């Protein structure tokens, strides 16, 4: 299992009460608190599959979407790191070691990986309009496919649906909808840039003297161009097929 950075370990040792304030014991403080999120994640995946079943049938002739389960819960290391950075930033921090389970909205998440850009929209709409999901959840949407260059901090392009479980206020789950190309970029960026930047956000000059971060940003743009082109091709093809059927 991944280890905490020295700074994060010092942070938990200082901020947790016994018996959790040890290298061996901190997990026992955090893990039970995220059990809820994991259980919620599983049941929402089951529900989402049902909601998307009609779309899947409609587009059964081609790849439409898949659910990526490789990161369904935020790692302990990321959770602790996020809390520590928040607390040390000396701002009015909303996420603390005490309330993190109710305030972090991405403790549980999963990703829906689509084929085309248009599929992202179809899936996102289907989920947002689902009566059953709306009965149980509040929805908050963050769409990073439509961010202007001046506001863009990262190359990530996805539609994030943040679901709040009505029955248990403070219990959130994040569904990330993105294309295969955006996912491919994200998986590379996570290793090459994101993790390094997360640990030392102020040290881009030292960590990326070769401008790796800028190159990754450019790759995201490139793949987005590709995604748009693919979507045009899909549209052209479908229009042609539609005309043929009509005639």
């Amino acid at each position, binding site marked *: 299992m991944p280890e905490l950075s020295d700074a994060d370990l010092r942070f938990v040792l200082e901020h947790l009460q016994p018996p959790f304030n040890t290298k061996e014991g901190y997990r026992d403080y955090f893990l039970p608190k995220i059990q809820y999120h*994991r259980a919620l994640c*599983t049941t929402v995946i*089951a529900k989402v599959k049902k909601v998307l079943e009609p779309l899947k049938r409609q587009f059964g002739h081609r790849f439409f979407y*898949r659910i990526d389960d490789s990161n369904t819960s935020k790692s302990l290391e990321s959770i602790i790191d996020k809390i520590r950075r928040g607390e040390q930033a000396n701002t009015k921090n909303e996420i603390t070691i005490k309330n993190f389970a109710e305030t972090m909205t991405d403790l549980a998440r999963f990703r829906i990986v689509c084929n085309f850009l248009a599929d992202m929209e179809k899936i996102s709409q289907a989920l947002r309009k689902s009566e059953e999901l709306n009965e149980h959840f509040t929805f908050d949407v963050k769409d990073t496919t439509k961010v202007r260059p001046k506001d863009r901090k990262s190359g990530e392009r996805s539609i994030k649906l943040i679901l709040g479980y009505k029955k248990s206020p403070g219990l959130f789950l994040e569904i990330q909808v993105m294309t295969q190309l955006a996912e491919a970029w994200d998986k590379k960026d996570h290793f090459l840039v994101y993790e390094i930047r997360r640990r030392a956000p102020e040290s881009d000059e030292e960590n990326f003297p070769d401008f790796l971060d800028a190159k990754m940003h450019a790759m995201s743009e490139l793949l987005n161009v590709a995604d748009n082109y693919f979507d045009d091709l899909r549209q052209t093809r479908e229009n042609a097929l539609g005309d043929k059927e009509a005639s």
Partner: protein
Amino acid sequence: MRLRDEKQKTGHLLSFTSVKEREKGFSFFFPVEDLDQFDSLLEVTNGFEKCINEHFPDYEFTGYSIPDLGKIDVDFQELNTDRISTFELEEFLAEDQEFIEDFARIVIDRHISKPRPLFPEIVTGALVSGGDFYDRKDEIETIWNGLEKGENFLLRAPRRYGKSSMLKFMMDNPREGWRVCYADLEGGKSAEDFVEYILKKGIFLQDECATCLPDHLSNLDIPGATEMKKTEIIREERQKIISDWQAYANALFNSIEKKSGENNFLLILDEISFLVEDMINSAENGVEATRDLLKWFDEKRKIYRKIKFIISGSEHLPEFLRAYGIDGQLDNLKEETLELFDKTTAKEYIFLVLAGRKIVVRNEEIDFLMELMGNPIPYFLQLLLDVIISNCHKRQNIDLKDIKKIYYKELLGPDRKRNFESIVRQLDRYKRYGELSGKGAERLLDKIAVSKRASIEMLKAIWQEATGSERNFEAMVGIIQDDFYIKHNTDDTLSFNSKLLLDWWNMHRLSTVQ
């Protein structure tokens, strides 16, 4: 109760990892279909976590959301995907949705100890072994501890309580420093048979024990001999035994004692009750011969330091012997009685057997099964589960009404008659106590069945009327207590201790007595 839906591939995986040896990890997969299972999933997840923390501190626990179990090999390469068992959430939740920790503990325990098979299977009639053998840990521990202190044991229990299976388990899983030989004495009718069976049905069948035989036999490489050769050797040895069984047995035991070296030698003599009953009844001087054998054996047990004995017989062996004036020959044996499974153990067993056959059973259904059959006599419990499993596999889904119907119409019905034949056969065996003894026993059982509790006094009168005398009444009462699970109550009455057998007797035997 219903067949588990194993087509559902979306669900929650609870993964258990050994802190010390990661390859010992295993996982349980719970299919999840919809949001309304959130509370159940949370209860089960929290329950397993608590169970791991309290009972299995060497294990860590992680939960994963699984969109497609079929692709788990690709997505979760760190998991031991060969050791995933599927359960449904319902299997670990009581009617009030409370987590059933006993079931969680027992499935985790079995996944850690890895018996073969992982879930016990139904073995009606035959000896159960390996992973099919269930529980009895405390009894086995007590006996081994006693043996190591130098004690010999008399293991008593009614028929089909699992004595022989437990003894075989001890033979297959000896404590360090022990060689174990198991011999079944059923069929023997004399002291000569007693000695011959130890040889023929015991030491000759267990290679590691054959080295302790007297030189003239140990030099023959008996483990490597053909069956024909072994039969020839036995025939020759039988002649020697017949000429002087005591001298032969002395030489045999002396050799075992001498050749055991650093090890101890445990000789398990099973079904001694049958041998004793047959000895008493097969010859005119049967009682004297039995007394002589037991007296000699009593003396021998005091002599040997390395050879220890477990003698196994029916619950009422001492009373039976006393009825023939044979007293005190078993007194220096430490007594160990095999009791029925307690309610918790029986429930765990039912849960495990059904889980192993992919059947989801609710807690109230387990309670209903136990209520139907009464005391969980292992043999009858297996019969009941067998018929329930075959129905569930045939129909996919059965409810309490179906279970009741299956119990009365199928298990106790004509199609399953063969399962009770061995019990009815005992009535023929009783003829050895006089031509009318079988009928007398049947009349006793009838009376007990009708009255629910019948006084000894009344039963004695019935016996006298049926057989023409009071002779053998006490012995017969002892025997039917073992064979028909009859309980001697404190108010000096007898009653059926097995509801299932009482139901069966009422349905099939009551009207047949002339």
